[in-house]
């Protein structure tokens, strides 16, 4: 301290430090604000990118076809039996309808170009319709079938060129390609057919219901998330049914009953360590134990649920123990004081107060499980599964793995669907967190 400052009064000296203290506080606040702005801008970038990429997947362009359901094509025996109807040849019905719309296309090559306009899955749309209502046989019906994904992408402007669908319909100008024909996805002939179809007013962009009702498919226009979503639901169901009771019971035992000794200390340390184990390790364990040793079916949500149970258990146990610890000891004393047994004290008084914390922990664990990919790859849930699973034993995939699979596919339309699936997954997560908040509010009691 200098001689000068030594002569200052305590008030003056305090004022000098006060300025420094306020400056430090303002600096700290500024750091905080900068951190929040950075975090928020990253979040906004993420959402903008995903929504910008994925919004298009909720729209699918369809073409209206007038299909004559000839009985000789699909039901020659006139049995109207569902088995025969399921196996019948609907492709020829679709082809006939297309050829009649483009009578000028006669060569093999041209006819192929015409057939390519419509999704190869159009026959399934017709099949499902006929099987739902066999009385359609022998009639002429007007059906909307999905356009092939490449044409869909051209119309959405995702693939060269940037075309506005409405402008194209109104004017008959040539499509403004920027690439030479050889480098394009569709040739001039194919583009001509597409324009013709549009001019006839048969093409329409509408809500993509297939995306929400179908399983996976090689054809992007038919690929949907329903199979993966159901797989995720079965997996989470198994996880929840196993991990919640096991986790909560373990937490109650460790927190309330277990003697505090070296053994329980070791168990506690190991549970904490388990929470930090990379998830793929659980996948390997699941492969070795559940598939090799117990011989459970491959790719099944049951096994996925078992593996994810192992993964979420530590989260639930740690959260539940923290919730139990935070119950004020006065409540336990009160219960024990009137002669409640230990179990009565816990079940009647401690658990209701700890429940919100336990549920929050569980839902955080479930959200983690919902977004988990790596361990499921190891047990074969990465398979290409077209059917929507009907039980936890059927082969299936889950949403994040579906995203991974689509992100790997080269078709432009799958890029769009990848982002759309991410949006659905995020929607699921937001929904689960909302449920967590609601449950908290509902069960929270003040004392």
């Amino acid at each position: 301290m200098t001689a000068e400052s030594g002569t200052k009064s305590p008030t003056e000296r305090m004022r000098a430090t006060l300025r420094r203290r306020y400056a430090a506080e303002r600096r700290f606040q500024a750091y905080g604000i900068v951190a929040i702005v950075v975090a928020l801008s990253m979040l906004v970038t993420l959402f903008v990118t995903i929504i910008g990429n994925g919004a298009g997947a909720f729209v699918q362009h369809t073409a209206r076809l007038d299909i004559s359901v000839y009985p000789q094509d699909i039901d020659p025996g006139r049995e109207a039996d569902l088995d025969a109807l399921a196996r019948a040849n609907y492709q020829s019905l679709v082809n006939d309808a297309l050829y009649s719309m483009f009578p000028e296309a006669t060569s093999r090559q041209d006819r192929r170009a015409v057939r390519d306009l419509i999704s190869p899955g159009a026959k399934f749309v017709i099949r499902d319709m006929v099987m739902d209502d066999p009385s359609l046989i022998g009639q002429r019906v007007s059906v909307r079938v999905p356009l092939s994904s490449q044409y869909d992408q051209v119309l959405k402007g995702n693939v060269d060129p940037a075309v506005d669908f409405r402008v194209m319909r109104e004017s008959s100008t040539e499509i403004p390609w920027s690439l030479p024909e050889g480098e394009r996805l569709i040739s001039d002939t194919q583009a001509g057919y597409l324009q013709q179809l549009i001019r006839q007013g048969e093409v329409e962009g509408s809500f993509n219901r297939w995306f929400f009702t179908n399983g996976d498919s090689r054809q992007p226009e038919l690929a949907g998330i329903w199979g993966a979503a159901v797989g995720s639901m079965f997996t989470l169901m198994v996880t929840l049914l196993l991990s919640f009771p096991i986790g909560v019971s373990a937490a109650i035992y460790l927190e309330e009953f277990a003697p505090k000794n070296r053994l329980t200390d070791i168990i506690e340390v190991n549970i904490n360590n388990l929470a930090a184990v990379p998830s793929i390790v659980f996948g390997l364990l699941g492969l070795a134990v559940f598939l090799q040793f117990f011989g459970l079916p491959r790719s099944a949500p049951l096994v996925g649920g078992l593996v994810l149970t192992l993964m979420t258990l530590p989260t639930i146990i740690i959260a539940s123990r923290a919730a139990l610890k935070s119950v004020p000891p006065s409540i336990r004393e009160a219960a024990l004081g009137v002669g409640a047994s230990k179990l009565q004290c816990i079940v009647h008084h401690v658990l209701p107060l700890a429940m919100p914390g336990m549920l929050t922990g569980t839902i955080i664990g479930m959200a983690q499980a919902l977004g988990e990919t790596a361990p499921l790859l190891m047990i074969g849930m990465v398979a290409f599964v077209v059917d929507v699973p009907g039980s936890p034993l059927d082969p299936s995939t889950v949403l994040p793995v579906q995203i991974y699979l689509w992100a790997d596919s080269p078709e432009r339309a799958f890029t769009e669907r990848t982002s759309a699936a991410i949006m659905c997954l995020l929607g699921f997560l937001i929904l689960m967190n909302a449920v967590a908040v609601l449950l908290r509010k509902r069960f929270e009691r003040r004392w």
Partner: protein
Amino acid sequence: MTYQQPHTEASVSYPETTAGSPLVAGGVKVAARDANVHYADKHAIKDVTLDIAPHEVTAFIGPSGCGKSTFLRCLNRMNDTIDICRVTGDIRLDGEDIYDRKVDVVQLRARVGMVFQKPNPFPKSIYENVAYGPRIHGLVSHKDELDAVVHGSLERAGLLNEVQDRLESPGTGLSGGQQQRLCIARAIAVSPEVILMDEPCSALDPIATAKIEELIDELRQNYTIVIVTHSMQQAARVSQRTAFFHLGNLVEMGDTETIFTNPEHKLTQGYITGRFG
């Protein structure tokens, strides 16, 4: 373990008592002989020997940390919940050793109720707070009987008039003094023989305190009451007998009047005259 006495008064010897013979006239409800409590390696209660007479209010006084609450909690084995706590010696309720292996701690706590320092009603309705004890002990067989017990207990705790029309509202919504009386009602709902009160008024204002003290005096007719208190005035007002604890030792016990007017022991005198504490 040797214990370093921090006070100069330590040179005086503590009164010697003999085991077996009753120390109070007119019957003994709770009897302790050479009771010791250890928390890990801390010797919290040292060879305490005392008797508590039925239908009397016995007050435990002493400076903070002297072990009076610890000893109180030995009487209904609340110390069992603390892992590191070890109780030795002989504590009897109506002649029965409460630390005997055959004694069920749940039943003991029904016989020896407890009211705590901080009012701790359950986060449930007023009715549920009082009904909980009788219900878990199976003391009532149907709703009307339970209603009667709840009303009777609230009545005896002097709370019925104040809460009669809102029995379904939460017990935590009451004022501090009302909450404490609710806790007393909850304790007497299981018809205990002894009620232990651990500084029941330390969180309350003087008016609420006066109400509780009045209540304690009335409850004496039916129950044996042991109260731990920091306030010597309170001990003088509500109790018939007083025990003075210091550093884990029972220094002196006797009629409240004697203790406060003519204590035998220098330590007691120092404490009640406010020279330390």
